[in-house]
């Protein structure tokens, strides 16, 4: 857009459009900023009225930041008698925080475990969907497969099914196969959900790689396999990476299957976070801390890799 164009909006238009968009962006960020702030409040500050929003101020709208929420998120605590507390001085800074409520830390909470499950299942299913998806996408892109269009549509249509509709038989199937509440079961399940998107996305990337490179390689005596992994794969690397991010985000965020098919061993973080309970009700600072820790990786990913992500989101529309 360096040359003059009749479509180049005037500076005043740009300024006006820009301020409206920025205003929307700020409004949209308020809930997220609020949750991040709540994670650093004490339970009393978190539910005070009017809301407190100035960090470290002594005024009525201010609160002193504390790590209570994070300590509560990662630990389990019990209330103790005064004699016990007097006899056992706090062991570390975290212990000192909970002493305010006459409590002692007795061990780690389940959050670390659930977070780790999210990581294992997320990466496991992403690897598998991208691996299988790349093979299938290459085949659909380069070879004549009978009924290719129907197969591709079939692959996509599996995404229209409401998760709860397939959850019933999957629940029964997993129960019979011993896959209930296992990492392997969840990895296979998320792979099956993700693979439709992976095949379509990767096919659009591989379609964009000219076939001449492979043909040259084949003439030089490469086999099809060699041409695939030595010529096509390196060129599809960006596409593979952005597909992987999509699969990872889906698996990371998924809730319906996780809440229905896992209970303890393989439960991921999304069904766990809302169940964090403090004294006399939900422990909002601890929940907010968990939410913050859980959402942060995705937000960082989104900002760093925005170009690839945006292409992935709009691929369906841009594709002919």
């Amino acid at each position: 857009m360096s040359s003059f164009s009749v479509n180049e909006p005037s500076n005043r238009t740009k300024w006006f459009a820009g301020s409206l968009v920025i205003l929307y962006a700020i409004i949209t960020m308020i809930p997220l900023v609020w949750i991040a702030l709540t994670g650093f409040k004490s339970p009393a500050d978190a539910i005070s009225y009017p809301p407190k929003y100035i960090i470290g101020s002594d005024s009525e709208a201010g609160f002193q930041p504390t790590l209570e929420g994070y300590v509560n998120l990662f630990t389990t605590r019990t209330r103790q008698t005064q004699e016990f507390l007097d006899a056992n001085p706090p062991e570390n800074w975290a212990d000192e925080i909970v002493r305010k409520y006459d409590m002692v830390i007795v061990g780690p909470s389940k959050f670390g475990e659930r977070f780790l499950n999210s990581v294992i299942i997320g990466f496991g299913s992403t690897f598998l969907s991208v691996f299988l998806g790349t093979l299938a996408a290459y085949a659909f892109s380069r070879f004549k497969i009978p009924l290719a269009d129907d197969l591709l549509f079939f692959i996509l249509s599996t995404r229209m099914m409401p998760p709860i509709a397939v959850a019933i038989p999957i629940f029964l199937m997993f129960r019979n196969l011993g896959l209930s509440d296992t990492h392997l079961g969840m990895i296979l399940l998320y792979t099956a959900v993700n693979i439709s998107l992976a095949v379509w996305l990767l096919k659009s990337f591989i379609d964009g790689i000219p076939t001449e490179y492979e043909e040259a390689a084949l003439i030089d005596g490469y086999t099809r396999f060699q041409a695939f992994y030595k010529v096509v794969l390196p060129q599809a690397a960006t596409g593979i990476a952005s597909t992987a991010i999509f699969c990872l985000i889906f698996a990371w965020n998924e809730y319906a299957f996780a809440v229905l098919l896992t209970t303890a061993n393989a439960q991921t973080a999304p069904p766990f976070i809302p169940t964090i309970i403090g004294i006399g009700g939900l422990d909002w600072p601890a929940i907010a801390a968990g939410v913050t820790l859980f959402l942060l990786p995705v937000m960082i990913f989104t900002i760093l890799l925005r170009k690839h992500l945006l292409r992935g989101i709009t691929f369906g529309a841009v594709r002919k």
Partner: protein
Amino acid sequence: MSDRTIDRVASATPPPVARKIRGLSDRAIAWIFVAPTIFLLLAINIFPLIWTIRLSFTNYKANRIGREVKEIGFRNYERILTDSDIWLNMQATAHFLIWTIFFQVLIGFTLAWLINKKFKGNDLWTTIIVLPMMLSPAVVGNFWKFLYQPQIGLFNYIIAFFTGKEPSSFEMLGQVNLAPWSIVIVDTWMWTPFVMLICLAGLRSIPDYIYEAAEIDRASKLRQFFTITIPMVLPFLMLAVLFRGIENFKMFDLVVQLTGGGPGSTTELTSINLKREAFEKWRTGYASAYAIILFVTVFGLASIYVKALNKVKER
């Protein structure tokens, strides 16, 4: 990766077979590459679907393993379609669908149109706006519940600040007249960026020369907007509506965390109701029939819609 696998396979097999593997025909490779995907989808999508269809004709209950299973024909379907409560759930779903799509299209298109004015830094702000749609819907529902708390919630505080009402005088999640709107607001907050991105792709696909030609013909800016911009973006917009429609028809996680279907059953969308029947009341056969009805509805509506979409594209 496949390098080593192939070599390993090749070295472990006698020479003639090895030669065969190395020099597989294109057709064989095509099938080897596609088969695992198809197999996985058959096993985890199609097989369960067929199983659901079978179960839907029985009175099976998944929590009673020893119980005799009887074939009861179409009785489950009859019961669902004549149940007035289920029509209430359908109504709640329709309310949710229609209003979320309305707001998301309105705000999403406007934002895309503004961003397409290419002001400085529009990339950065687009990314910030996109953030909510990348997050976990269940977790989003969970923390919006906190924002919606009467008395202590930020949402009530802000509304009270601007309207002068008492912040404890209304409960977004607890009042029958407000709860359906509370879920519309959160879904709009979360998914407007999706509609925006697709509209943006549409706006950017319009070649400049069309506007230049219009300018030469002295078409006014308003006229250009209605005769060029809108028709050219329409197919994209309709696609965004399709995706949102399918997703929101299936809506479960966000609303379950936010309202759990309440108060009463005012926000009990079909998926939530289905989950109750299947995993709380354990009426597996009945719920299976329900699932099939929902699936056929989505599939049917989507196919009709896609036909309309293709007509618009052809124009």
